[in-house]
């Protein structure tokens, strides 16, 4: 589903590479944690997959597309195959819960009847049934993140990228969010989640990829957050 072959990314000529010769493959239906401290290259990793950045060298394949050779007008088609969730939710404050989720479908030209059926279904999935008419500021942080997740998955993308989705949430709420992501993963969606949250990683026991200074220092099935490197 996602494959990086010897990928390096250097932002400024001569600077230390943000990613250094990374090769990794993530299969369809995997649930993968991407861990590492700030500046370890997690964000660059996600940006390469979204094709917000291009690799300096190496090849990136996502959802059957070779991103090195993807023309810029096809980038939107790639992004329709990837849902994205962020630490800061990124909701539109002047739109209701329903409209925030519907927005993602409107702007890719979905028909109205399609939107009318998919949005409530997705809100039900994320546990927000009955809150369609609320505005984001009327919701708790956890609920807002559920709206953002609903927006990311409403078009049933095969891949869900999460960048610190629990970074702004308390531990109890985070567990709820993780259960939701797990449920989405069980429907066949590949989930890649960048996080700092060791408790969650330890609890979930999923595959863990650890980056440090741009290098991949660990790729472990059913891993935990903090294995000291010997």
């Amino acid at each position: 589903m996602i494959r990086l072959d010897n990928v390096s990314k250097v932002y400024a000529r001569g600077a230390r590479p943000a990613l250094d010769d990374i090769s990794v493959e993530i299969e369809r239906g995997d649930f993968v944690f991407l861990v590492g401290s700030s500046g370890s290259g997690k964000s660059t990793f996600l940006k390469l997959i979204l094709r917000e950045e291009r690799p300096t060298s190496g090849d990136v394949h996502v959802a059957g597309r070779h991103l090195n050779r993807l023309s810029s007008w096809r980038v939107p088609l790639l992004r329709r195959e990837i849902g994205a969730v962020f630490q800061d939710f990124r909701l539109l404050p002047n739109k209701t819960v329903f409209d925030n989720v519907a927005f993602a479908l409107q702007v890719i030209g979905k028909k109205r009847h399609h939107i009318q059926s998919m949005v409530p279904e997705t809100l039900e999935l994320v546990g927000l049934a009955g809150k369609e008419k609320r505005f984001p500021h009327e919701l708790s942080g956890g609920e807002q993140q559920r709206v953002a997740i609903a927006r990311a998955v409403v078009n049933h993308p095969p891949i869900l990228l999460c960048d610190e989705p629990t970074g702004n949430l308390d531990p109890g709420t985070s567990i709820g969010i993780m259960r939701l992501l797990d449920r989405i993963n069980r429907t066949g969606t590949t989930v890649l989640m960048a996080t700092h949250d060791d408790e969650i990683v330890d609890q979930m026991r999923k595959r863990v990829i650890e980056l440090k200074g741009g290098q991949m220092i660990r790729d472990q099935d059913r891993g935990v957050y903090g294995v000291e490197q010997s």
Partner: protein
Amino acid sequence: MRLRFIFGEVFSGLRRNGTMALSVVLVTFVSLTFVGAAALTQMQVDKLKGDWYDKVEVSVFLCPDNSPKIQCSSGRATPEQEDAIRAVLDDGSVAPLIQKVQYESREEMFANLRARDASNQFGSLTADQMQASFRVKLTDPTQFEVVADKVRGMNGVETVQDQREIFKGLFSLLNAATLVAAGLAAVMLLAAVLLITTTIRLSALSRRRETNIMRMVGASRGLIQLPFMLEGAVAATLGAVMAAAGLWLSVRYLVEDWLNQSVTFVDYVGAADVLVVAPWLLVVAVGLAVVASLATLGRYTRA
């Protein structure tokens, strides 16, 4: 769905940036008014030329009794000299350029003068003091020199006069007016482009949140940019409509109703001519908006 979405975005954008949108409307209004005024002045010039050049003639004045010119040294033009001149005009190489030749004798000229001189200003003049002439109507008034060269200097010809000379001053005045209007129009159009650019930029910045989400969920670049382009285009079009309306009103009430009554010998441009200019104003307005958006949007809504 998509259309509704786009128009919803356009109008919320215009509402949010109300004062900027209004200034775009006003600047395009003023600039396109100048563009339209320049076009109408030029149409007026063409109209006058077509109108008056139809009436103007080349006058070949024949020697009167006491002319100081060499070719008149033998005194008043003789019938033989007149026949020779007529032969050149009728059968010479310039004949194809000539539509009509009319001889005006001194008596006829005198009669014409009397007919026009209602207040009897020239009552003391006599037919003897008049000057006979050939009134030559050209098929193409601009070919004056070719014809004039043929007869100028012939015995019995005192002077050859191109009546177009009389209008030259007026036309150069009108042409200067066109230039001034066009110059102002150019400056104002530049101001309009810059203002539209700034407006679109502000609008794009204030809606970054939306456009970022749109990029993230895979909206096409066209869909992301179109609302901004349309926003500029709608404001500019509104300005163009106002300019067309302003020009129409001024032509309808100032030229047709007022100038037409007070200075009657001229055929003026009419409100119908404004309707010819108006579509072009719209084209210019939309063109401006598109150019300005293309110059701006690439940077603010990158894919």
